[in-house]
């Protein structure tokens, strides 16, 4: 038994355990952390196969960027308000079984074509060596053979970014700088107020007055106590 087999066993066992944890943990954050562990072990398996670039990319892209966002979505959602997954409709359960079976079958077909039928495809180890290494080979293939798929993927990501920006835009209906009275903390007193004139305040000032320019700034010096005493004729 070689060392590689031992490491493979350890990594795959850890990966499977983490994958089990993803579905088994009750707290969604714990599930997400288990998913992180699973991804890291997958990356380790990639490295063992000699695909360091893929392994590192797995960590940077999935573990680093995507999962952080997923994790935050989960964290900021109240766990008590999550929908109940266990008691989904029978159709849902059926559909999930079917989809899972199809995915499994796809993986099986891929493995069988590679091992049993010995149809390995063009990207053999010799070819990778000839291209100069993993990174070079991936670059070549990505930008020549699969250029169209690559561009489509970029387009989809761009759409995703634009969608995120649109969703994340602040609500334009609410004026951010509307000037109101400082009510302080209004609880406990608003319904107890007597009727009558409330805020005939001098504060109906347009919001653009509340901006200050970014450029050079000086102070105005005065010795005369009667100068600049009125809001209309301030030092601006």
């Amino acid at each position, binding site marked *: 038994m070689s060392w590689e087999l031992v490491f493979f066993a350890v990594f795959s066992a850890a990966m499977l355990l983490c994958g089990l944890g993803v579905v088994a943990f009750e707290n969604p954050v*714990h599930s997400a952390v288990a998913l992180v562990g699973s991804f890291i072990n997958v990356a380790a398996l990639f490295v063992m196969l000699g695909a360091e670039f893929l392994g590192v990319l797995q960590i940077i892209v999935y573990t680093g960027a995507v999962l952080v*966002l997923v994790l935050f979505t989960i964290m900021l959602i109240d766990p008590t308000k999550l929908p109940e997954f266990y008691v989904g409709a029978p159709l849902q359960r059926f559909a999930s079984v079917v989809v899972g079976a199809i995915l499994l079958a796809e993986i099986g077909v891929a493995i069988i074509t590679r091992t049993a039928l010995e149809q390995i495809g063009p990207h053999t180890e010799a070819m990778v060596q000839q291209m100069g290494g993993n990174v070079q080979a991936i670059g070549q293939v990505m930008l020549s053979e699969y250029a169209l798929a690559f561009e489509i993927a970029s387009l989809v990501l761009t759409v995703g970014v634009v969608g995120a920006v649109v969703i994340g835009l602040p609500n334009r209906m609410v004026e951010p700088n509307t000037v109101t009275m400082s009510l302080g903390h209004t609880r406990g007193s608003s319904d107890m107020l007597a009727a009558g004139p409330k805020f005939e305040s001098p504060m109906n000032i347009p919001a653009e007055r509340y901006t200050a320019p970014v450029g050079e700034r000086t102070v105005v010096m005065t010795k005369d106590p009667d100068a600049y005493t009125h809001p209309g004729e301030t030092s601006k």
Partner: protein
Amino acid sequence: MGDQPIWITFIVTFAIMTVLLLSMAYTTWYERKVLARFQDRLGPTRTGKAGLMQPLADAVKLMGKEDLVPDAADRNVFLFAPLITFTTALLSAAVIPWGGTVQIFGTDVNLYPTDINVGALFILATGSIGVYGIILGGWSSGNRYSLLGAIRSAAQVISYELILGFSLVGIFIITGTMSLTDIMFKQHEMLSFGPFEISNWFVLTQPLGFVLFVIAAVAETNRAPFDLPEAESELVAGFMTEYSAMRFALYFLGEYISMIIMSLFAATLFLGGTSGPGADKFWGLGIMWLVLKVMAFLFFYIWLRATLPRFRFDQLMGLAWKVLLPLAILNIVVTAFFRLIGNGQVF
């Protein structure tokens, strides 16, 4: 560069870990002393000569403190999170070369733990795992300041890692490799301009990339003026508000290790790593040059902290996405263009 018995790799790794952990402790002392000089004070003086025993005293104090877990905390995650930051920070040291293959007592020794062909990306990858320590620590504390610090940290690290990666692409285009050892030895070559010979440091050919890298590295390590996750005047202590004792120290040390690693990384990529006068003759001189470069970087970190106010969060993100990212892409395009000219594929 060649294969070596595995026990030599263990010894080298052990030596590098020891040096890193010790230097991390003394980086705290270095920061306190330098910051104190910036601020017209003396810094630690009471423990040992010039306060040199201060890290030891701090360690003893922190170990003696009670390891508190708040009631509202998610206990397991809370206890586990600091370890992530610490270990991933240490893990990055695996790919940083301290020299080439040298002869020590008649044995060939590689002065780096490993040399994978995507070493630069490996450091980025460990950095992106390291942020989990901050996020999970902040979330599991059950404190809103911690949560805000964690959210800030996540957004900041993702944004600035992008810039960190993009600023390196220029070097990858020039060298055609991502192995840190190869990149470093590329810079040992000398360029001659008539009578003058200067080292081919990438800071000369990639000045914009260097500036971007330094800014992003400061942000990536959560140091001032980008120390928003732990902005003490707004968020008390950010994600580590609820931590105490050694777990607090782990975060603290993780930050310092990240500083050292980022300094090593910058020195390796842009300042020629071990390159310097006499470095090719004796490997010890090369390590000395590397240490000097790292200390200069650390001094720069502390200088920033002593001088600059803190960014606001929206300004920070605006800087990353509106200023630095276009500049980084510009850098890539220009570098690629010159590379094509060099290859004779244009004109």
